[in-house]
């Protein structure tokens, strides 16, 4: 694989790196809010993957206009899918933060090791 081909997959490399950064943060951090930040980064990587695969070179939004019927269009389906996935991600994050708030109320800390010691 030559350099150009490697660069051609630039978005997918970014996807892999961001995915790993997110997953590492979730595993390595003991602060619960930082874990949630990691989870969000992890999910964003997947959004990037979906958006990348629907892009057609020179493609525009798939709206058919008079006199411009021969346009190349990008695939709108992955964008719609990822819109849904973003909503799911936001709800998960909101619920996760709500749980962190309740953990803080119950334990007085949001560090995982201190919570484990408390019980």
């Amino acid at each position, binding site marked *: 694989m030559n350099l150009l081909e490697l660069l051609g997959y630039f978005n997918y490399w970014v996807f892999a790196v961001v*995915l790993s950064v997110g*997953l590492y943060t*979730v595993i390595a951090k003991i602060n*619960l809010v930082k*874990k949630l930040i990691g*989870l969000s980064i*992890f*999910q964003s990587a*997947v959004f990037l*993957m*979906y958006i990348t*695969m629907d892009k057609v070179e020179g493609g525009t939004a798939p709206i058919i206009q008079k006199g411009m019927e021969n346009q190349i269009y990008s695939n709108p389906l*992955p964008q719609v*899918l990822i819109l*849904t*996935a973003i909503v*799911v991600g936001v*709800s*998960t994050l909101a*619920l*996760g933060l709500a*749980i*962190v708030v*309740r*953990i803080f109320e*119950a*334990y007085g800390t949001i560090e*995982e090791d201190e*919570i*484990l010691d408390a*019980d």
Partner: protein
Amino acid sequence: MDLTPHLPALQVIVPMLSAPLVLLLKPRGLAWAGATAASVLSFAIALNMALIVVDGGRLHYDMGGWAAPYGIELSVGAFSALVLLIVTGAAAAAMIAARPSIDRQIEAGRQPLFYSAWLLALAGLAGIAVSADAFNIFVFMEISSLASYILIAGGPDRRALPAVFKYLIMGTIGATFYLIGVGLVYMMTGTLNLADMEARIVNVTDINPILVAAGFITIGLALKAAVFPLHVWLPNAYTHAPHMVTVFLAACATKVAIYVLIRFDFFVFQANLENHSLQFSLFLMPLALMGILVASAVAMFEGHIKRLLAMSSVAQIGYIILGASFITEAGLTAAAAHMFNHALAKGGLFLAIAGLACHYRDLRLDQLAGAARSMPWTAAALVICGFSLIGVPGTAGFISKWLLIDAAMDEGGLAWLLVAIIIISSLMALAYIWRIVETLYFRPAVEEPAPGEAPLQLLLVTWLVALANIFFGLFPQFPLALASAAAQLLMRHTL
């Protein structure tokens, strides 16, 4: 008006639309009644569909009138009908019994919210089972997961909060892995419909992305299904959840993930990927065997009755995965039948524990000593369901254990090892169930004896489930017919 063609859609719509309505019913008796009505209606719908598809038929429904593969297709076959029966049956039984236990654990003002989350979890789980669209399954999976996080964290036990946080993190990672897998398959095939995927993968020239997708999907769903060693979220979440939530989720939540795992692997990948069956078996069979042995061993030494049974759930998930990893009709029949029978046994056990919990605040085994003397009926139901979990002849658990051993005998050189492991783990189950029986019946009480039986409503449902364990042990025809129709359908797609 004939509603039969609309049943697959109604299965999801009934609980989903009832969820916001229940919120409006402020007097808490009404909220409970509304949620119960919706759960029982869902069960009736599932039963109706199961009777239609038991002969190997299939119900299709095109959402919004858009035909597949462009629209979202709902499709119910024997396998999904079996899973739907488990999900809605668990929800309905737990909901009918729930009120006395919920009144003790959840403050009155928050109860409508709790019931609403319950119905959303039910809608999500049912949605996973009816949907034939990979992305739709993801959305329903997240609906059910988010709702079950709320349910688990809803109780008075503060230890539920770190447990549910761990569940949220691992569950989201699992779902995201599944999403990556679906994305990769979509990239190569351009479709999200499962049947259409199967047809189109044949024409894919570069098979590597599909292989990666199979890995992501299998691991993501194994996380959701708590396959050993990805089960670490399960014991604490089940132990500290409100007791009725444990009944509901322990009976069906992980099984739905196993259903998606089996369905995806058999429908989409088996027929198309060379050596996929070998990889599937080689990956899952050792995990299943380790899960069966390790989790049973941990359960033998566990001191908290709910955590003990949660560990046993991990072992039982091992049995189901083991049956599926044989990739034979007999193995899949055993796996599907064990899903049903384990739901009956574990649901009954947790119902009985919810009964005990009405009088015993601390559910460690030491504190429960002698409980059978003051609560003989609850304890007796617990013993019957426990026997079913072990696989004593005459109970439902025996049927699927027998089928599993029967399927394992066909595995050639491995057969004796597999049979030995199944029998050893059954003996371990005998050991941990006997510990419970011994504590309840033969040890002198340390606590003051409970003032009486569990509330009648709870006790009746517990006994209904316990008797169902015996009934399906003696007359297993109906679940077995569904299970073997499901296995035939799955095997038809295998190379």
